């Protein structure tokens, strides 16, 4: 049901293709900005291009499925679906987790398509082959890393979902800010060392940064030791974020029920 809803009840192939256009274009935009900038000063490096392509491909998906709980609540309020969820015996937590996982599954082909298109586009546009390791092992490692970041993304989703319980308009505003900050602080496009101090230290506190590093260790460096370390940090910090997110959401849900925010909407 969650999957069908995510696809807007449309043709799955067509909808996935339409949804792929945006992340692919975002990845190519970042790649072209890097290519144009570095070419002007003669510092173009295909390995850095791979860094940008991998990060941008994964970032666009994290930012998409992290906001699913927010959208699920705001849509649910407007379509009167959410009150049915909260009067059910269980909390809204499993409902939102279901919507989140459906969106996560949708994102898998999108990430794969983004990487493949970017690989061939780089050859076509820049005349360089991105040095990405495309083997069964590296793809498996990437998949494990993507599963490893689920707790972090779901935890963030619960935090943003809590916000959606209390607001009746501009629900998308905070997620867009958080998504934007993730682009800057999670090493999606550039190493955190580029950021001025103390902004650069923020990256070290984010599970998404470690996820980016683990994915690059799998696809670019091929370093199992670094991959394992970064994956461990992703999962550990992700579970911390998930636990806090769940507690915060339960509190928000309880408070929303008491104060009547939970089914309030703007007409």
């Amino acid at each position, binding site marked *: 049901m969650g999957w069908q809803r995510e696809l*807007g*009840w*449309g043709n799955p192939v067509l*909808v996935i293709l*339409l*949804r792929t*256009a*945006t*992340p*692919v*274009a*975002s990845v*190519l*935009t*970042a790649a*072209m*900005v*890097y*290519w*144009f*900038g*570095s070419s*002007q*000063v003669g*510092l173009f490096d295909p390995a*850095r291009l791979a860094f*940008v392509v991998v990060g941008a491909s994964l970032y666009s998906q994290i930012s998409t499925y992290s906001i699913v709980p927010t959208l699920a609540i705001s849509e649910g309020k407007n379509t009167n679906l959410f009150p049915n969820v909260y009067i059910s015996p269980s909390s809204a937590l499993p409902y939102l987790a279901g919507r989140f996982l459906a969106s996560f599954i949708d994102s898998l082909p999108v990430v794969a398509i983004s990487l493949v298109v970017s690989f061939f586009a780089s050859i*076509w*546009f*820049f005349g360089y082959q991105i040095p990405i390791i495309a083997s069964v092992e590296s793809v498996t490692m990437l998949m494990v890393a993507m599963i490893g970041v689920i707790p972090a993304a779901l935890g963030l989703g619960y935090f943003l979902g809590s916000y959606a319980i209390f607001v009746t308009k*501009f629900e*998308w*505003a905070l997620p*867009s*800010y958080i*998504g*934007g*900050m993730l*682009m*800057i602080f999670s090493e*999606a*496009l*550039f*190493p955190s060392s*580029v*950021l001025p101090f103390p902004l650069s230290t923020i990256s070290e506190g984010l599970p998404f940064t470690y996820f980016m590093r683990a994915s690059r260790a799998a696809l670019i460096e091929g370093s199992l030791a670094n991959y394992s370390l970064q994956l461990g940090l992703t999962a550990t910090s992700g579970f911390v974020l998930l636990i806090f997110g769940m507690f915060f959401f339960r509190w928000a849900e309880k408070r929303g029920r008491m104060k009547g925010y939970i089914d309030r909407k703007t007409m």
Partner: protein
Amino acid sequence: MVADSRSVKGCVSSDLWFRTMYARTWVRTKSIFGEPVWLLVGIGFPLFTSVGLAFLYKSSGISSLSGFAILGGVMVSFWSNVLWSMASQFYWDKQEGIFEVYLISPAPMTAILVGMSLGGIVGTVPSALLVGVLGWSFFAPQASPNWAALAATFVLTITALYALGMLLASLYLVYGREAESLNQAVGEPVSLLSGLYFPSLGKSSPFPLAVQAVASLIPLTIGMDALRKSLFFAQDLWAIYPDLVALTAMAVALLVISKKSLDTLRERGRREGSVSVRFT
């Protein structure tokens, strides 16, 4: 007598046109400025995208090009407004039953579209300015503006862009639930092709000639190219006049096509009854 009657009819219809346009402009402007939070929520996407790409320029070894990313952030505010508040507006109006009211009222549809555009431009200017000011303050990129060329290019780019929005608004009338997915699918690829953050035309473009030719059919592509030339390379009106001529031609052509398209699709919708179809 007949001539007098025509003249009176013309005056009444032009009066109605301007009153409709003013009313639609006022509603849109009021809806934005009546809620000051709009200013803050509207800058999230363009601001963070342009800051992220400006840092990417910096990490590429050329922080002086961060101005390209900031300019892109300013212009993407308008492009987003065209997509989400122009192109899909009639679809949302149809969903809420307002479009049927437009149809049965004597108000000219073109006046409603122009009013929507003017309101959208007025409402987007503060967000775009804020993105520009914040970005420029943080990165302080070098610029050598030719103000006359910059102003002319900006006005013509916005005019052509909103004319494109009018055309899309009429085309979206024939779409159902796909309208939103289509909007999401169109936004970023057009930003890529039009070179919002890097030059997509000329020798510096990474695109082959065929792709550049397709990209140059989008008003934003020509506009961004001319804006960069006039803002960063001090090119004057004479130097960028081919871009200005192209933008003017595009604006006029898109306005004419959007009028014809709207009339055709509205009539088709009336005949087939699809104008009042809603998706819940």
